Structure formats: C-alpha cells, structure tokens
C-alpha cells in the first residue's frame, strides 16, 4: 500500500466537497436500496460525518495503532444501526466507485489496489470489534418510557425501562432514538446508578430546533418505545474509588451524569465529602433541586449549592457557575467532575486548573475513541 499515493488521491477527490459523499450515498442506495432505511431522512449531517471519518482514517492510515481504538469504537457503535458484515462489502464497492468517479484519468489499477487494501484494513478492525462485542451485549436495547415528568419550562425527566437489563457505570451515556424521529440518535446520560428495578432516569432539555429533544420533552413520549445504544463515556468514578472528596459542578441538565455519580456515592461504605454546585440561568432552571435537597438532608457528607446566573433576585449564590465555584476555594484535595454546556465546562476546568488543581483530578466527558 502506497500511503503517499493514497493521500494524494484523497486530497484530489475531497476537492469536490459535498459532491463526494453525495455520490457515495446515492451509489450505495441505488445498488442496495435496503440500506437506505438505516439513515435519517436528511443526510446533510451524515455526509459531514462520513467525510470527517475518512479524513481521520486517511491521515492516520499508516499508524494503525492510533487508529485502532477509533475504528473499534466505530465498529461497535455501528451495531446499533443494524450494520452487519455484508454491509462492509457494499460500502467498499460504493466507496471505490466514488473514488474512481472523482479521480478521472488518475484512477489506475495500482491506486484501486491501494484503496482496496486500506479499506480491508479498516473493515477488518471494525468487524472484529463488532463481532467481539456481540458476545457481550445486544446491539441496542428496547426502552419503554414508563414516566415523563415535566420539571420546568424546558426540562423533562424521563424514566425508561430497558430490555434486557442494562449494566453501565454511573456517569455514562447512551444514544437514544425516538420512534417519532427515526434514525436520529442523540446522547443522554443516565441520572441514576443502576437500580434493582433496572429503570433509567434521563434529564432532557428542549433545545430550540432540536429534533430529538423536542420529541423527548413532548408529553407524547410517555409509553413509547425508544431505542437505546450501548453505554459509553468516561465521566465515571475511578476503580477503586479514590476516596478523595468530590467537587461536582453541574450546569443545567449536565446534572444527570453527576447525579448518577452521587447516587453511586450513597452506596459506598465510607462516602467521601461531596459538594455539588447546581447552576442554571434562572431559579426555574434548577429543575431537580427538591430531590437534591432531600438527599442532602439524609446525608451529612453532602452539600448542595444552587447557583443562578441571570436573576440577581435569587436568594442564593448568583453569578456564573465557574466563578461561584472558584470563589469557594479550597478544592485542592478534591476530585472535580464537571458537566454542562461546553463553554461552562471549559471555563470551570480552566479556573480550577489555575487555582492549582492537577489535570488528573479534573474529570470531564471525553468520548475517547470518537473524537476527531
């Protein structure tokens, strides 16, 4: 395999922009119409994902070790879409046809062989990871919405019963597909540690224009059957639990994974001290404060500090969540877990780091294998 030739060829074809993935998917759907049902109606985002993945793969194809974790994750992740080994052949054929089409006279038998070899490498890692995963868990779980509780203007809490039972680490997330938004998967964190009855709690915030969040916050969702992907994510307590005190910083529905961690702490024989900051724009956005305060009343090791950023009348801490956390000081002996809007998490992490907290002790969600 001539990697330089491969990259040069790829650079040439990607100059065609969106035409490339457009041709690929049309070719694939014409040759295998049954595959179309695996994708959402709008393919705009999908085409971007395909090109992003190809760019990553081509740029790292000569350092397969670095790529392996990414490809294994990709292979496992595709199980929930119903991808099976046969689909890899179909994709290879359409990918080669697409590259040939856009390469023009530059398409030679040698180049075709390079691409074929690269694809075999990628496909074999993905299918191997997928088939190993088959031994461990189903491709997806059926999840019946047993309760839907509107908590504020734009936040609802869902209770979902997965079948079969799902094992996961508190702090992890699953992709959810709603029956009214076929083939659109969005990640949500479980807000509880695994329970006896197996129920999963999700906190859903309505995003303006968010197709899936709109379906999941609608009252119509009660009783429907969702599909849940496998649990993923690394925002979890270490094994064994370090025993250091915990600082939890939750912005809006970023509370979900941290509440799951809190839930786990309640089961520890010697729970560490936990200080949870729960922030929202207005008091109305502190949608789960009642249940948190009930927990704090039961557990002397737990302190809850609600923070409101956009309402000076709030009878409590006001200001930006990272600022309020930083004002409190004395976090050096803590492990910090941060979840919420990206900018909030970034700011809070930066403030804690500049206050002397080591990076090892600042935990944020990082989809390891999936980052570009």
């Amino acid at each position, binding site marked *: 395999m001539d990697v330089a030739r491969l990259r040069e060829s790829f650079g040439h074809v990607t100059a065609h922009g969106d035409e490339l*993935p457009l041709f690929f998917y049309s070719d694939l759907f014409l040759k295998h119409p*049954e595959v179309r049902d695996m994708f959402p109606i*709008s393919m705009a985002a999908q085409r971007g994902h395909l090109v992003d993945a190809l760019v990553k793969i081509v740029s790292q194809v000569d350092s397969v070790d670095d790529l392996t974790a990414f490809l294994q994750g990709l292979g496992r992740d595709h199980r929930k879409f119903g991808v099976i080994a046969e689909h890899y052949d179909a994709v290879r054929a359409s990918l080669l046809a697409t590259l040939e089409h856009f390469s023009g006279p530059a398409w030679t038998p040698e180049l075709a062989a390079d691409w074929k070899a690269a694809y075999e490498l990628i496909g074999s890692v993905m299918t191997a990871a997928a088939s190993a995963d088959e031994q461990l868990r189903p491709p997806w779980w059926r999840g019946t919405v047993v309760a839907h509780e509107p908590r504020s203007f734009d936040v609802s809490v869902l209770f979902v019963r997965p079948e079969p039972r799902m094992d996961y680490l508190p702090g992890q997330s699953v992709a959810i597909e709603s029956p009214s938004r076929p*083939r659109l998967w969005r990640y949500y964190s479980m807000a509880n540690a695994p329970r006896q009855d197996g129920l999963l709690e999700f906190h859903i915030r309505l995003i303006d224009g968010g*197709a899936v969040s709109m379906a999941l916050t609608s009252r119509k969702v009660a009783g429907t059957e969702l599909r849940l992907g496998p649990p993923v994510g690394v925002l979890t307590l270490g094994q064994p639990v370090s025993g250091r005190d915990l600082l939890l910083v939750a912005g809006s529905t970023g509370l979900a994974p941290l509440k799951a961690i809190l839930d786990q702490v309640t089961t520890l024989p010697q729970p560490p001290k936990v200080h949870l900051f729960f922030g929202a724009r207005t008091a109305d956005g502190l949608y789960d404060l009642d249940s948190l305060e009930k927990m704090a009343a039961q557990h002397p090791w737990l302190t809850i500090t609600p923070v409101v950023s956009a309402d000076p009348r709030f009878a409590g801490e006001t200001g930006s969540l990272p600022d309020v956390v930083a004002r409190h000081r004395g976090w050096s002996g803590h492990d910090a877990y941060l979840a919420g809007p990206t900018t909030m998490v970034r700011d809070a992490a930066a403030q804690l780091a500049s206050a002397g907290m080591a990076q090892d002790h600042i935990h944020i969600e990082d989809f390891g294998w*999936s980052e570009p």
Partner: protein
Amino acid sequence: MERALTTAWFDEQSRMTPEELQTVTFPTSRLGRRGYEEGPVREFLSAVHAEFVRLVNDRTSLWQEVQRLRRRIIAGEADGDGDEQTVLFGAADAHVHAVRILSVAQVTADKYVADAQDYSSRLTEETRRRRDEIMQEAQQYSDRLLEDAHAKAREAAVSALNVATVPQSDEQQRAAQAELAYLRTYSDVYRSHLRAYTEGILRGIEEWERKETASLQEAAPGGPTAGARGPTAGAQGGPTAGAQGGPTAGARAIDGNGYLRH
C-alpha cells in the same frame, strides 16, 4: 468538438495514408532474381509498424477523450443539445445519471428538513421569549400590588397610632372603622384582581396545551405509537461507512445533553 477531434489526424504531414499502401512500389532485386529489394521492404514495414503504434495510442487517447466528454455531459457542462447527450450515453452513464438524480432528490429532502427545523427553532425561540415576557410582566404586576399594599398598611398603622394617642370622638371612631372596612375591601379587591390575573395566565397555558395536543394528534392520527417501528423492523437502523449522529467522529448533533453538544 468535431473539428478538435479530426485535426489531430492531419497534424503530422509525414503520416502514412491508406493510398500509400496501394501505390507503394519497390525496386526489383538485382541479379535478375524475382522479388523486391529487401532493404526498402523492411523500411516500409517499420513505417507501417510505427503507424500502427501511433494508431493504437491515438485510439487510447480518444477513448479517454470520449470518457472525459461523457463526464462533462453528465456534469451538465456540455453546451450540446439533448440529442447529443442521448447519443453519447452508455450503460455506465445510466448509473451515474441515476446517482445524479438521486443526489438531487436527497439534497431537496435535506433542504425541506432544514427548513422545517429552522421553523421549529424560531417557534420555540419565540415561545421562550413570550414566556419570559409574561413572567416578567407578572412579576412586575405582583411587585406593584405588594408595594401598594405596603403603603396602605403603613398608612393604616400611622392613623391607628394617631387614633390611639388622641381621645376619639364617636365620629373619629366611625371614620376609623370605615377606613378599616375600606382597607379590607381594598385587599379583597386586590386579591381577586391577582387571582383573576393568575387564572387568566393559567387559562392561556391550558389553551396552548390543548392546541398542542390537538396538533400532535393531527400530526400522528394513529396515536403516539403510530410512528413506532417494532424492534424487528428496527433490526436494521443506522449508517454504514462513516459516523452517524452521535459521538462517532466527534460530530455532536444539535441536541442531546446540552453538555454533549459541540
């Protein structure tokens, strides 16, 4: 285009023509033997050989030219009329043409979805804004009521103190009682005002909810599960090469947990 293709044939004046093959003569061999002189014949054969090589090369480059033109036509860049396109269309082109048609259809569908999403986004934004306005208005209104009530109470307290220090005539007592009755009525009226106002808002909210439910039912006449596919139908569900909405390839979708958004 025709001209461009044919000129290549006449560019090189030295090239062999079919007529030359017919009119070629060779000197007879010496010493009275029958046959041609070997040297010129070999020379001629080598010229024929060179010509054949050129023909083969020309054929290849023309084939590539045809391919290139086909692609141009398919890409819609050709200036020729429809008939020309039809003539130049092969079986492989039919597939590429189908791919193009499907691509156009897909892009159209993408636009419709984007428009719908945009519309729904504006709708929720507007609702959020109106909700904030209503809440703010209600807050201001209740603040005003509270202020008024405070002022009245202060007034009443002051006049009660005054009344206590000064011996009261029957008339003053009656006036004080009248004032008290007025204040009670006043507070009753305010309370009912506030209640009516709050109930009005609640009715508004119920109205919205009813409309929402009605439009939901309209949108899905079969009820909430009409759109649900069973788990078996769902046995296929997702993409192949590349990543699908989710953490795959790091591309975050627009919703999902707020903190998982890109």
